[in-house]
Every structure is written in structure tokens, then in C-alpha cells.
């Protein structure tokens, strides 16, 4: 049964890694604004460059 103890430790370490990834995400402001990124992605397909007079 002692293998269960080992598994618990490994499981906690793994979960702890995800928790710290979550902390990093919160601290770097990824949860501050959840609306703008969804708008930003809409304009990602910008053609390389449009120069003067290209617009029709």
C-alpha cells in the first residue's frame, strides 16, 4: 500500500505545478481583462502591408 503514498506525493507535485502556473497567469495579468484579447484575435489576419492608394 505504500505505493499509494508515493502516488499521492507525485499527484500533489503535479497539481502544485499547475497551481503555480495558475499563479503566474494571475500575476501576469491574464485574468485582468478577458474581453480585449477576444477582440484582438479578430484582427490577426492582417495582410502584410497596405500602402498608400491600395484601398479600393
Amino acid at each position, binding site marked *: 500500500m505504500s505505493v499509494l503514498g508515493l502516488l499521492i506525493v507525485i499527484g500533489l507535485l503535479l*497539481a502544485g505545478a499547475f497551481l503555480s502556473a495558475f499563479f503566474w497567469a494571475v500575476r501576469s495579468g491574464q485574468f*485582468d481583462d478577458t474581453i480585449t484579447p477576444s477582440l484582438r484575435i479578430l484582427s490577426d489576419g492582417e495582410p502584410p502591408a497596405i500602402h498608400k492608394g491600395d484601398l479600393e
Partner: protein
Amino acid sequence: MQNSLNQTVVGPCCEHCGAPSSDGTVDARGRTFCCLGCRAVFELLDANGLSYFYRLEAHPGPTIEAIVEENAFTYLDRKDISRRLLAWQADGSCRVTLRIPAIHCVACVWLLENLYRFSPAIGESRVVFPRQELTVHFDPSRLKLSALVHQLSKLGYPPALCLDSLNSTEPVASSQRHLVQRIGIAGFVAGNTMLFSISSYLGLATSDGLARFMSYVSLALALPVVTYCAADFWRAAWFSLRGRVVSLDVPIALGLAALFGQSLFEIVTAHGGGYLDSLSALVFLLLIGRWVQDRAFESLRFDRNYADYFPLSATTLVDGGERIVPLTELRAGDRIVVRHGELLPVDGTLASGEARIDYSFVTGESDPVIRQAGDELLAGGRQVGGAIEINATRSVNSSGLVALWNQTGSEGDHDSAQTLISRAARWFTGGVISIAVASFFYWIIVDSSLALRSFVSVLIVACPCALALAAPFATGAARHWLARHGLFLRSPSVVERLAQCVAAVFDKTGTLTEASASVVSYRGKRLAAEDSAALAALLTGSSHPFGLAVRRFLGNPTSCQITAYEEIAGAGCRGLVERRSIACGSREWLASCGTLNLPTVDESRTSTVHWASDRVYRGRFDIVAPLRPELSQLMQNLGRSLRLVVTSGDSDRDRDRLVEALGSTVSMSFRQSPGDKRQLVEELQHSGPVMMIGDGLNDGPALRQSSVRIAVAEDVSVFAPACDALLQARELPRLAHHLQFSRHVLTVIKICFAVSIAYNLIGLGFAVTGQLAPVVSAILMPLSSLTVVGLAVGLTHLAARWTLTIR
């Protein structure tokens, strides 16, 4: 002959902003623009390789309202101002965060995040859409702040620069971050401890050592939940105990403490596994409830003060030259120039020019006040007409209006009022503690070994988690339903106050009437095409609101040349158009121009503009601010449950029109001073809470007196005065539905309370008999919380379907 203004537009629209452009300009490729400003922006974007802007949305540009002068923002470069606006970075660049109300679509975000293409001095720029904020990194040695702001204004995105911008510090995102972090930790711990507890739920015989190991791991995991995640509950309970108020936080804290204490005791003495899974699940759910409740409308602000309305700077006259100085530096004795549409920033005496000051901002009276040179002027009014010069007699902060504002700034917090929840909390806490004590003494007599256990069990089971979740989820959901239907609430508790109102006071100007859409009707000699053209040419130079209304009414006649133009602010204007002398303005103005056959007209009911050609009277334009549509239906619906009162600072010339439109159930009072209105609200409050519906700017005292302050606005994101709720003007006719909905929400909360108390009684049955097994607690507590959350959200949704979606 009579016709009225018709605003429907068919025809070409502006390539940039989508406004009708039939009288605008056309460029070489046949693209039409409503004005030169829009065309300039279009060409600027095209030249900088940014024409992708126009592919993201059709006509995405904000209408260019006025061409901004190059030097309009030079005051921003002064050290004392820029120091407070800029944040310096390590590499010598700086960062500035500006609020830009014009941000409204995907294309705006894209354009503003591509600002770097305009100048090599601009680095990264980021938009925070819900707050309508733009953060720009730039190199101040190569690009001045004033130039950056000017560039933005030229593009049609002028930043909202007001006195308050100076006080703003870093965005307060940290409290939201803390909450998200707490939810994350509590969820993590709840999930893991539940996994560890499965064996004890199922009663599986695990080896003793492993079970103890798991319970110690759970204990270690639960520590941050109790100390960090639940910190707000401890604090709130402590504050309410110290203030001798019983809030729902007290039984929550009591329950959490009992849960943790019992678990700690069981684990340390090896009696069992404790209830740490229930504890962390409860905290997790409670925090989610808080998050649901606090999701705010970030672009709206409900607590503006004078600093949000006052500009950052004023124009002063120094040695004959104009200088723009920050408002905070104005001193008594300075000479200030105030132009048409500008706010008087300080108290002063009028030095030259004729002042026509619109004090509707302060007093509610919509007719401008006329003052002559030498008269005293109070800060806070808006000059209408030509430019005036003022000698300041006080600085900004000691000016009468501002002092008044500061005095009443810390108004009473309505939230502390007797609410349903606080009443329930007092009742509940009393009940729980008496049951716990009663069962303690019962077991002392019967079997003293079970006494302490049953006492703690009662506290554990009675943790009013479900009760505490009902209100946040119901009011949080209600707030979002109301927002979807045009009513934005400052805080969730407004729902409850809204439902309890017994009377509603309406302000007339700007609330029931629609000031921006004046209806003009013409009476007199027929307006031939050349008459319209001549009048339009004459009025194009006028800045008076009546002149603008008539100009709109005339439509887009052919343009013609005008010479010898002369305007007397507030009286009228005249000029020579194609060898005809045209005069337009008040009756007195026409008389002073020597007009013949001037008729006497009853002007007590409408505002009137007359005109004459070659001194011969031709006709008059009657200008009426129209009442908003569907008011009679609204009043009828509201009248079923509320007393209705309409007040106005104006004369009673609109009385007949209002009675006709609103019905006779509404009582009306005219010529009310702000003090009278306040008194009116106070009298109505003897019978219960009173809501006041106004434009939010006028009638400060009456608004502050009322229980629920609703401001009606055409554009809620630009305009946000001190109020409890913002109502979109087009949704005003449906206010009765909003009220009905808020009453339903109150019923929903009561139902949820009943359900959660029923659950508590079942749990108490286990607890007082001393049989609360961990598995019972692990099932019962989350189940009760989840049912109550489901009920609160589901029933609110149903209520919204029933009441709000009815057209």
C-alpha cells in the same frame, strides 16, 4: 405652412464614420465623407498603411466633431502635470494610461494598438476594452505628451482629460487578482482533499498509517484556505461583531471555525478524518458567489464628482496673450477666457462680454442666466454664446460650488440600510446559537460525552453557506439581466432597494423631454429654396443651440456666400446674402434691426426664433424639446404600484402638454428650486423609499436625498454622474418592467432562503442527535449550496423571461 424635422436619412454615407454625407466632400476616387475631418483621418490612415482599419468593420471611425488645434494640449507638457500622468520606465521611455470614451469596436482596438506606425517614438500600445483605456509606451525625448494626445484627438479618439485624471493612480486590478487567486487555491484544495476523503466516505478499511498520512496532507492543504482564502470572511465577521451588527458573516465564520476546529481535533487525536473537504468546498463556493456578485461594468462609473466634469486647464490672459494653465494653478486675480460651451472653472466677476450661463448642471434650470459686466459669476455654469472674460475671485477648490460638492461628497451609504439579508442574518444567527446551546445542555443530561460534539455539529451544519449564496447569485444574475435591458446598477444591493420603492420622482428636463432632438416647426411666409439657402448660410456661423436646431431643420440647401456677418450672442445674427440683408434671432433683435410689421407672438409656451429679409418680417421657427415616446404607458404601468411626481425648475409652460402625455395620475410641480425638490423627496420618504429619475447632473440635493438614484443617459459609457443606476434613455419606457423584475428577484431570494433553511433543518436533525458523519456533511453541504445556486440563477432567469422580454 408647417413641417417638422424628419431625421431619416437616405443617401451616401461617410466612408469613415457612416454619417450621412450628402453635403460632405468627395475625394478623387469618388469616396464620400461627411466632413473634412473624417476625410483627413481617412487620408492619414491610408498614408500610414493603416487602411486595414476599414476592412475590420464598416465605417468604424468615430465622427470627428471638431478640428483640434495643434497647441491645444501644450499644458500637458508642464512638469507638474506630466509628472502625475506619466509613469517612467527604466529605459527612459514612459507609459501613459488614458481613458478614451470613443473606443467602441474591433477596429478601434486594432488602430490604437498600431499607433507605433505613426511615429518611431511610439512603442507598444495596449487597449483595455472594458475600461475604455489605452496604455501607450513612448519616448518623451522624441515625442511630447501633448503631441501624442493631439495625434489621438486628430484620429477621433480624444482622451477624456479632466481634473480627476491627475488623481488616478495605477489601475486597481489587484483586488480582483486576489479574488481570482483565492478561488483558484480553494478549488485546488477542495478537489484534492475530496480525493483523499473518498476512502473515508466509502468506509473502506485503509491501512491506519496511510489514512493518517492523508489526513495530515489534507490539514496542510487546508491551512492556506483557512488563513488566506477565507480571510475576508474572518475580517467581515470581526468588523460586524465590533460594530455590534449581526451580519451573515458571523454565522459563516462561526461555521468555518467549528469545521476547522473539529477537523483539527479529530486529526490530531486520530479520531477520524475531519471535514476539511467540506470546509474547502464551502469556501470555494462562497468565493465564487462573491466573484459573481462583484463582476462590474468597468467602463461605467457611478461615483463621479466635480473633478470628472471640470477640464484640466483653463485659458488665461497674461500681458495680452493667451496662455493655457492647469486648473489647479488658477489664483484669485487671474483673468480667464471662457468660450462657448466651456465650463466656468472658478468663481469670478465678469470683466467683458455678455455672459449667458447655463446653470442646469447646478440648479436644474434649463434657461440660461444673463449677466452683465461687473456681475458675480459662480463656478459650474456653462457659457452659451460668445467668449467672455472673467476675473477670478477664488481658486478652484474654494469656489462655492466645489465647496458645496466636497461637503456633501461623503454621502450616507445606502447599503447599510435594513436589507432583507441583514434581517435574515440576525434571525438566523440567533436561532442557530440557541439550538446549539439547547442541544449541548440536552446531551449533558443524557450523555455528556456527546455534548460538545453535537454543539460543534450544529454550528457546522448551520453554516449559512446556502443562505449566503442565494443573494449574491440572484442579485448578480439580476444585475446582468437588467444591464442587458439597459439598466446598469451600481451594486447588486440596488436590486432590493429598487423593489421596495413606493414613490418615483421624475425630473422633467432631459429626462421626460429629449433636449438633443428638438422639434422645429415653421410658421410664416413660405420658405423658398433661396430663403432656406440664405438662412442656412447665415446660421452656419451661429453657435447658439436654437440657431443649430433651425440650421438642422433647414436640411442641406445649396450653399451661398455671406458677407457683413454679425452675431450678438444670445440675441441673433444678421448678414448679407446675395444682396439681401437677412436677420434671424429673438423678437427684440429683429426690432433692433429695424424690422417692419413685427407681430406680437405668445412665446410663453415655446422657444421662438424669428427671421426677416430686407427688414420685412417673414416668419418664425418654434422650437420644442419633444417628450420621450411611450411615456403614458410607462406612467400607467408605474402608477399601479408607485406614487408618481414630476418636478421641474422650469416655468409651467409645459404643463398642458405633460398632463396630456402622462395622464392625470401624475402630480406635477413647477418652478421648484433644488431645495424644494429635496424637501419633496423627503416628504415622500415618510411612506417608504423613494426613487428619483433624473439626468443625474441637475438636482444634486434631491438625488442625494432619495433612496435610489437613477440617471437617464443617451450614452451610458460617456456619461456617468453620481447615481445608483444608469438607465439608457431608449429603455426609459420600460422602467416599469425593470421594477417588476426586481420585485420578482426579491421573491426568488426569499424562496432560496426557504429552501436553504429546509436543508439546514435536515442537517440539524443529524447534528442534534450527534450523528453527523463526514460523508453526510460531504454530501449535504455542497448539495444544499448547489441547489440554492441553481435555484437562484434559474428562477432569476425565468423571472427575466417573464417580465423583461415582454415588449
